[in-house]
């Protein structure tokens, strides 16, 4: 799971994963629609309308939803490829969103506010991940448990902020006031909701692909991910330091995702600002087989799935919750495929 194996198998095997995934998605959706006595044609039309059916659906629903999923997918992919089981993207996202919101509301004027808020989000995400990284480096604490704990701490931090120091002036609603327009990220296409954050995600995907492929740091990260012991003995890699770097980078990207979401989409901070983006991102990264460029594709896939499912709930009454089932099946499907592939390699 953590290594990116070269393709040795037959071409039909390479075609199999997307086919299996697509079949699972369609199968679950049909099952949910039929079991709930919804109209099949009407439901699928709603799904299509909400995801790819129009320019607005694609640019303003699918890609807007894909933006945090792509960024967080990159964060998870980077960590997993480096052998760091960071399941704290959710918390790092919330840390970034909180920091960006605090600065967006701080009264800094003009375009300077974005130049402060977004880097603050990156820094906050990195710091949040650094806690888990430090605990691992200094005390050997399993990052699975520490990042999970920090997700909850971040959730309560947001809950405190939006009911305490950052609450809107009337003190009625548990949210911040809406950011002034100078703290809104520029839109990419006029009349569409797609914002600069998605362009950042695309550039970042390219940058990470290049980093893993062509830089010394990328080589070290991959070596540690492939096997820490071998990396230490053969590659002259200081494993703890490299892992700490992976924590920082992964957290920074997740924090950026949070900063981009509040300044590009919601223009405010509130509880539940992430409907589990950080966990969905694990499916995004795994389906991409932890390859940064493939994350762009799987980000769009999951963005479209969620946008289409939202429309299906709105227009045809089909429960949105099935999306989590699809995401889980995708992950389990990838695991089963890896298993069958590894069996194929063992037997000549």
């Amino acid at each position, binding site marked *: *799971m953590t290594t990116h194996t070269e393709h040795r198998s037959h071409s039909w095997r390479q075609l199999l994963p997307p086919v299996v995934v697509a079949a699972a998605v369609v199968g679950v959706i049909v099952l*949910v629609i039929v*079991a*709930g006595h919804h109209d099949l044609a009407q439901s699928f039309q709603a799904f299509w309308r909400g995801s790819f059916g129009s320019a607005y659906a694609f640019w303003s629903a699918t890609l807007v939803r894909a933006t945090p999923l792509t960024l967080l997918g990159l964060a998870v992919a980077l960590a997993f490829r480096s052998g760091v*089981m960071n*399941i704290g993207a959710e918390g790092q996202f919330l840390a970034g969103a909180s920091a960006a919101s605090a600065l967006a509301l701080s009264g800094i004027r003009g375009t300077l506010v974005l130049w402060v808020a977004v880097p603050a989000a990156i820094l906050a995400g990195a710091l949040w991940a650094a*806690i888990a990284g430090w*605990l*691992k480096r*200094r*005390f*050997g*604490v*399993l990052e*699975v*448990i*520490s990042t*999970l*704990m*920090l*997700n*909850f*701490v971040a959730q*309560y*931090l947001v*809950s*405190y902020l939006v*009911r*305490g120091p950052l609450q809107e002036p009337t003190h009625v609603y548990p949210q911040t006031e809406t950011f002034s327009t100078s703290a809104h990220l520029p839109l990419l296409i006029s009349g569409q909701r797609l914002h600069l954050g998605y362009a950042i995600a695309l550039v970042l995907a390219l940058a990470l692909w290049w980093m893993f492929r062509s830089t010394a740091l990328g080589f070290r990260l991959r070596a540690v991910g492939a096997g820490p012991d071998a990396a230490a003995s053969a590659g002259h890699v200081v494993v703890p330091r490299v892992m700490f770097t992976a924590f920082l980078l992964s957290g920074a990207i997740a924090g950026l995702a949070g900063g981009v979401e509040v300044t590009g989409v919601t223009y405010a901070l509130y509880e539940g600002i992430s409907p*589990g983006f950080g*966990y969905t991102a*694990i*499916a995004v990264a*795994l389906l991409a087989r932890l390859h940064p460029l493939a994350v762009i594709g799987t980000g769009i896939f999951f963005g479209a799935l969620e946008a289409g499912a939202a429309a299906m709930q709105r227009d045809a*009454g089909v*429960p949105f*919750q*099935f*999306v*989590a*089932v*699809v*995401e*889980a*099946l995708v*992950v*389990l499907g990838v*695991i*089963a495929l*890896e*298993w069958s592939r590894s069996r194929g390699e063992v037997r000549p």
Partner: protein
Amino acid sequence: MTDAIAPFFEATVRTATPLAFAALGELVAERAGVINIGLEGTIIAGAFGGLVAAGAAGVGVGFLGAVVAGMFVAAIFAFFVVTLKADHIITGTAISMLGVGATGTLYRIFYGTTGAALETPTLAPLPIPLLHSIPWIGGALFGQPPITYLLYVIVPCLAWWLRRTGAGLALRAVGERPEAASAAGISPARVRWAALLFCGAMGGLGGGTLVLAQVGTFNEGISAGRGFIAIAIVVLGRWSAVGVSGAALLFGAASALQYFAQAMGWGIPYQFALALPYVLTLIALAGAGGRAAAPAALGARG
């Protein structure tokens, strides 16, 4: 002050009960070397299974339904993690998403979009004579539904079983050094399957308790992160049955503290009380030198 103390203890034990069931299940899984992040899915499956079964045949069958549903979800997890030797964390995350998503979807399909008012019969409190009139803690410990008393039996039995029986030793051996256990004729795969099914049953009971002894209804996402809290409880309880039940009470107390603080008129934000146990868990992990008390093979594939 005294007026608020008895309700505080009562709320502590009530909140701790489902957590303790799930955490004791997780304890057994982790002692066998499997970290089950899918526990959240197990709990919510138990909650939903309990609702459906209780609606059909009463509270008693409801608890049975909760256990079966929890074990079913745990079996999916065990198939991937033990049989296919998949990564524990990734599989567990998927199983949690599956449980929450599937119960949410099924709930809408079975009970429609307006199922919010759906009520299920619940298990009434059964005060134990004399004991329940002990001041302050009597009502909290001995004025609970009978399912809570089951815990008072399970905790000492499990502690004894883990330490003093051959089967308990085999389980711990698989969690510490699976190769050595294997050389001694113990099948790690079989032990882990059994441990995970037990974990599923306990997680299911935790979910069932939530619906059938406390809330009296189901809503989407009712597990509300309890599966993850249970994992923290196992860490904080230093992988022992008695420690785990103490840590469950601590988490229960932290969540009850918000009402207590309100009643006392303290100005501390309740989020700090709720976040405190997670911070304590991190400190406990760091203070004990990380994995020192954790089973050596915890989370290792294979």
